[in-house]
């Protein structure tokens, strides 16, 4: 067990049910501050569902039930006193397919500030610029900030979504297969981004792609049928997996 103040997110005895399905079975793990952690597993193993329990995106799913605890900075986010809006401000999320809003590039990022009550135009302009620079997109879009976000390529759209996700000043970034629909060049740009973002954020990524995961992770976990089979430092995970099933997966036998 790592030292207490190094732990950003801790998951204790997490169970998730959807109707009669027991989707996540007794998950226990922790994520260290300013680290990149990838969660691997075949389709339908529950890794996306798990990611969504971390910012309570499953709240609106009817028939869903959850037991156990998710502690962020030592506080259970499923506690009644927790404000979901504030929680999600603190946790940026990037989805599998780029999902910019049908708005201009500028407004896509400004939206995150406006919904949290920021009206100062100068601050917003400065912030939008900064987020785009962080996401490595500024030089490509600085002349067309007020054009529709759909005018960008898929890879640029995904970086816009990343810029959007960091606009609200989060400390955690959740990414659900952020490179799944991108070409290798665009994917590579995003992987580089993730590595540099480690300084600022705790990053948790769901991935199919073992090679990409190996390139960026500090920690890795392997999910199978709703169970966390193995969770370890990336070095051990990819070279000396303890479990036979993990080994089968990372050598692509699933």
């Amino acid at each position, binding site marked *: 067990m790592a030292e207490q103040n190094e732990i950003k997110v801790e998951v204790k005895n997490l169970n998730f049910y959807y109707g009669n399905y027991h989707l996540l079975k007794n998950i226990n793990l922790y994520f260290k501050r300013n680290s990149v952690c990838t969660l691997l597993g075949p389709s339908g193993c529950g890794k996306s569902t798990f990611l969504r329990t971390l910012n309570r*995106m499953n709240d609106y799913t009817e028939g869903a039930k959850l037991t156990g605890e998710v502690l962020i900075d030592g506080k259970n986010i499923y506690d009644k006193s927790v404000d979901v809006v504030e*929680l999600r401000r603190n*946790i940026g999320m990037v*989805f599998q397919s780029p999902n910019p*809003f*049908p708005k201009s590039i500028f407004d896509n990022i400004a*939206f995150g500030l406006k*919904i949290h009550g920021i009206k100062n135009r100068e601050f917003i302009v400065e912030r939008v610029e900064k987020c785009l620079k962080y996401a490595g997109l500024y030089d490509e879009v600085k002349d067309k900030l007020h054009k529709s976000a759909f005018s960008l390529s898929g890879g640029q759209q995904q970086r816009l979504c990343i810029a959007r*996700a960091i606009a609200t000043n989060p400390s955690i970034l959740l990414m659900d297969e952020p490179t799944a629909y991108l070409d290798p060049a665009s994917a590579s740009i995003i992987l580089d981004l993730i590595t540099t973002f480690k300084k600022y954020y705790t990053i948790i990524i769901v991935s199919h792609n073992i090679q990409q995961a190996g390139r960026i992770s500090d920690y890795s976990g392997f999910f199978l049928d709703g169970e966390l089979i193995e969770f370890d430092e990336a070095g051990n995970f990819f070279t000396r997996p303890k479990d036979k099933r993990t080994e089968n997966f990372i050598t692509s036998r699933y």
Partner: protein
Amino acid sequence: MAELANIKKDDDSMPIFPINRGYIKRKKFYNGIAVFFAVMAFIIGAFPVFHIIYKAVALGHKYLNWRFISTLPTGFPIGAQGGILNAIIGDVYLIVIASIFAIPLGIGSGLYLSLFGKKRTNTFLRLLNELMIGIPSVVWGIVGFYVFSTNAGLGFHFGFSALAGGLTLGFIMTPIIALLTEQAVNQIPAGYIEGALAMGATKWQATKSVIMKAALGGIFTGILLGIMNIIGQTAPLLFTNYYNTGLPTGITGPGGAVGDLAMLIFIYIHEPSRILHIKAEAASVVLLFFIFAVDLGLRLINYLTRKFL
């Protein structure tokens, strides 16, 4: 068949299947039949429309002039001289009142059904909404009569007036807008909504600035269908507004009733007067153009809001 002979039994290669020339001929024939029926269906459906327009223009053409739509009816029986301005102004009154009532209510209900409600109650509410669309307009007329026109209902007693008539027409418009709004919102990619929620937006913030904008086209179609539907209604107005040969002095109580094109046609056709019959035909052409103008106007607003919002 000759081609079959090429297939070797213990060969690993993908077997070639024989080409059935008879089947190709048949499928082309069926395709031709399908196209024929589609074209026929269109002609049969469109014929009455063109026939009505032709008949109405042929009979009423001598009244199709500016004077007819810009003067009030006069003479004896009333309408024998003058035009139909009362009905055109009245229709504007009714549409505006019905829209003010029905557009927010319809959009709100649609958003509730698609975003806010629980699954099980929604199934029931959706059924109710579809039922409301199916209720005959004459029944809405009676409902409007009790609720808005008489003293018996909720205490509105607006009398036979534009307000009572417009609100009753609003009843007819609301479920149509609700249905189209719901469908429009359901077609929005889930990523828009999730993306907004994941940033810490409340459901209302997500609705206001992301969902509404993406669903605008569908919502406009709903408003358009709703207005198209009420322009031609007479039955609800029989009990709530009836008809005014002049211009209204208010929107409730005595003097609050307005003229209406559909009512005008209905009333003129019932009069034993050849002139009024011809004027009714001319008025129906005007009504068609009126619907066409409203359609074009709303489409233009839709186009402009999409482009500049």
